[in-house]
């Protein structure tokens, strides 16, 4: 158990194992994404109320779900880095932020594109949508703070503090946004619709959700590998690695 933790803390080991995982996970992810997209776009029947526009669900929901989960991954990594002073947790946390921001962005953009045919407007100030917007700000805040520091070790620590503060705040933010919305008007627009989802739509959706999780993992590992290299640029093992690299 402890030896596993020690290994996790060792950059060369992590770098290598991430490479091994990526070697099979990345192709699988890409194939799954392609299959899911084709299935959703071309091989399912349209929704009886929303018509073909509902096909956006196959990217919208996975992106939103993974973006939400991503923040927790980031916060946990931040906590580990602050409490156990594990440098690799720092790296993981930093690597989460841009991916989370990108996925949140996808969820927002696809959502608002979807909104135009269904609600007739690009944007509404609904509780869930607003909290998604806030999530985007939270992610961008971490990215921006990290980039603003020159000393990357200090940057990691600063971001860890910020993420932890965010962790305390996220429930408050979500709760408050929910209350804010219920204050003003009844939910005239229901994103969920009470329609029980048809299995022919559910399976491609599940596949897409799974592949977005895999996508997140892949990107995370790739980002971590790059980050490890940059931080360890002066150590022997990276130099050896670079020596074998044809430019």
């Amino acid at each position, binding site marked *: 158990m402890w030896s596993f933790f020690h290994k996790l803390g060792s950059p060369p080991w992590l770098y290598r194992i991430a490479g091994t995982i990526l070697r099979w996970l990345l192709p699988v992810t890409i194939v799954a994404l392609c299959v899911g997209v084709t299935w959703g776009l071309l091989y399912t029947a349209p929704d009886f109320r929303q018509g073909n526009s509902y096909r956006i669900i196959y990217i919208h929901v996975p992106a939103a779900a993974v973006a939400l989960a991503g923040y927790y991954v980031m916060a946990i990594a931040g906590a580990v880095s602050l409490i156990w002073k594990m440098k690799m947790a720092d790296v993981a946390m930093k690597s989460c932020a841009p991916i989370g921001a990108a996925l949140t962005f996808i969820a927002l953009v696809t959502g608002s594109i979807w909104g135009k045919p269904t609600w007739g407007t690009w944007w509404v100030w609904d509780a869930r949508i607003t909290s998604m917007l806030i999530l985007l700000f939270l992610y961008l805040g971490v990215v921006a703070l990290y980039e603003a520091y020159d*000393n990357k*070790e200090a940057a990691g*620590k600063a971001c860890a503090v910020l993420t932890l503060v965010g962790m305390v705040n996220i429930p408050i933010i979500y709760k408050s946004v929910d209350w804010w919305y219920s204050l003003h008007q009844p939910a005239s627009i229901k994103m969920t619709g009470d329609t029980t989802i048809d299995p022919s739509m559910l399976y491609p959706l599940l596949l897409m959700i799974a592949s977005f999780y895999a996508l997140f993992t892949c990107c995370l590992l790739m980002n971590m590998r790059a980050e490890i290299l940059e931080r360890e640029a*002066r150590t022997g093992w990276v130099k050896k690695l670079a020596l074998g690299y044809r430019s």
Partner: protein
Amino acid sequence: MPQGPGDSLLAVYDLCLERGGRELFRDLAFEVSPGQLLQVDGPNGAGKTSLLRILAGLSRYGFSGRVERRTPLLYLGHHPAVKALLTPRENLAWHVAGEAAYNDGQIEEALARVGLYGYEDVPSHALSAGQHRRVNLARLYLSHCPLWLLDEPFTAIDKGGVAELETLLVEHVGRGGAVVLTSHQVLRVACRVQVLSLTEGLLA
């Protein structure tokens, strides 16, 4: 674990520092004992300020090695920590370093000793460059910390001021204190000055 003599005020083991891709020093190990006056010497960019900040505990990342601080210390850095809007008197009375509560008499005496008699109640931004730094140096006359870390304390100070400061350093060392300082000037003091040379510096 290496064991230093119990009475040293500061001990440094295996200190290595790399900044901006250059190794500034490696495997630095020394102790500072009571009665010692240590001048850190070296050309611009040698790493004197970086070393002092590590000794003071302000830098905590980016170096390897261990520093043991066994006593309260007083650190004066490149920035004077003098608030332009406050008068010299207020600057000392309300100093954020919070070592002790000084009474008015003590403060006036310290200011007089750094040559600011008559300037106690002038806002600090209306002082000249040297006077501004002197406000900071007045802390040395008030402090009871055994260990002083001074980063170029003579900057902008005139000849008379430098001589007086040197006397003060000797007094402090004589009382059983210790001083680590950086300076590009040669110290003219009546006691032994140990020199720690950081030779890596500018390439010129």
